[in-house]
């Protein structure tokens, strides 16, 4: 059975944004497992903003992903990189699975768990970065 995906889901699946690896990332988030079918890895580069409204805050300057998984897993991975780019870390931590689903039109109900994965991977990458920061202090 092939699920009913929106055009936007298929678009992101066919042409995923920000695919790949970042060689020296500020943080990495890996979620999922092969048994359940989806594995997602998110790389972020964090910088401190020098001017403008977010002056002094840390933002996600670069974000990339690598995903093994179904159509929804790839599309939500692609979507989260777009949603998180140039966001402050606090803003990025607030991105939820509903945000991703909404941005993609919608996901078939049974696939909603896949978008959890994308948000989780991003949050894991931010936590990874923050943990490293603490350690370096």
């Amino acid at each position, binding site marked *: 059975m*092939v699920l009913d995906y929106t055009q936007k889901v298929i678009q992101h699946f*066919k042409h995923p944004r920000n695919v790949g690896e970042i060689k020296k990332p500020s943080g990495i988030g890996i979620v999922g497992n092969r048994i359940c*079918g989806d*594995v*997602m890895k998110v790389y972020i580069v964090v910088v401190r903003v020098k001017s403008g409204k977010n002056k002094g805050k840390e933002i996600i300057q670069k974000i990339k992903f690598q995903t*093994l*998984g179904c159509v929804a897993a*790839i599309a939500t991975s692609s979507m989260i990189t777009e949603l998180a780019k140039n966001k402050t870390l606090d803003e990025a931590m607030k991105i939820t699975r509903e945000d991703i689903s909404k941005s993609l039109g919608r996901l078939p109900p049974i696939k909603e768990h896949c978008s959890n994965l994308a948000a989780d991977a991003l949050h894991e990458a931010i936590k990874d970065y923050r943990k490293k920061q603490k350690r370096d202090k």
Partner: protein
Amino acid sequence: MSWGKEILSKMAQSKKRIYLDHAATTPLDREVLEAMNPYFSDKFGNASSLHSFGREARKDMEEARKKISNIINARPNEIIFTSGGTESNNLAIKGIAYANKSKGNHIITTKIEHHAIEEPCKWMEKELGFKITYLGVNKDGLIDLRELENAINEKTILVSVMFANNEIGTIQPIEEIGKICKKQKHKIYFHTDAVQGLGKEKIDVKKMNIDLLSASGHKMYGPKGTGILYINQDAKIQGIQHGGGHEFHLRSGTENVPGIIGFAKALELMDENREKENKRLQELRDYTIKRILKEIPGSHLNGSMEKRLANNINFYFDDIEGESLLIRLDEKGFAVSTGSACSSKSLEPSPVLTAIGLKPEQAHGSLRVTLGKDNTKEEIELFIEELKKIIQSLRKISPFKHSKF
């Protein structure tokens, strides 16, 4: 291969599609359509009516019944027309179980049956307290005959084993199973779901000791909504759809005369062309399997190489998820199927693939290609080229490392 690329880009422009999912359904053969045509508006009579309109419909319907019975070496009164494989399977399981429940309440089947066997069995378990034994299979998808013999007890009334599997194409040792059922001291009915087998394989119900056999029209270039159940005339069975007493009081409902004519014509054509077409398909199948194994690293064939339907190809690819693969191929015009959990309603990987020993992560990466009479070698060349490209591209975005090919 530059010519391949050229044709592929032409294909994309012209939106040509290549159908490689013949185990799901097949297109209606034009000859079958022609045979059916008169029975919609001209010879439209109700086959149960006594007047000339009814009589002419009945005559041709009975001719079709005879044709079908001849092909499988049965008698005409042993063929019941139904709405398809699912109905035939339901009638077989429930009909035998209800009629013989005083003799026993044990059914033996396998772990790789279609839902249309599994669900009626589960229902009998729940509603009438039947006991069901599900036989396992080896890595080729074959049941163990000794295990079958050991599973039989004095309460066993029915053994139901599919003729050929819809996913991996494994053909079971039907004649041997028939022998085992026959040699028991008490009567054990042997039913086979031959939805994927009839037409493709030579079936002789007498020689194979088959008591009941289900088949479907649309899997063999016949119309959808048509099927048969062969029932040995000595079998004790009860109808489960009650009404006007059609089909020897076993399946009430006005006969679908155009469908019945179409079913018979489709089977007749399959039977006539079987040997020649099987040889052609087998060559095409083996060519595809060889090339994929050789040219795509991390590719593994599922099922048996010897006991396999001539048109079935089933692989799994390391670090590939089947739904993604299917949608990417679909985009390029190739229609295939997968046993990945991510493409199923239940989000569970295919029970057939897990029964032959695949881990969930392996079943996720499965691809089924089922060839048909219109597929050519050129189409297969194009398919393999596209498959290679898509697997490379999906692995490129995966977090796991792969060697390039």
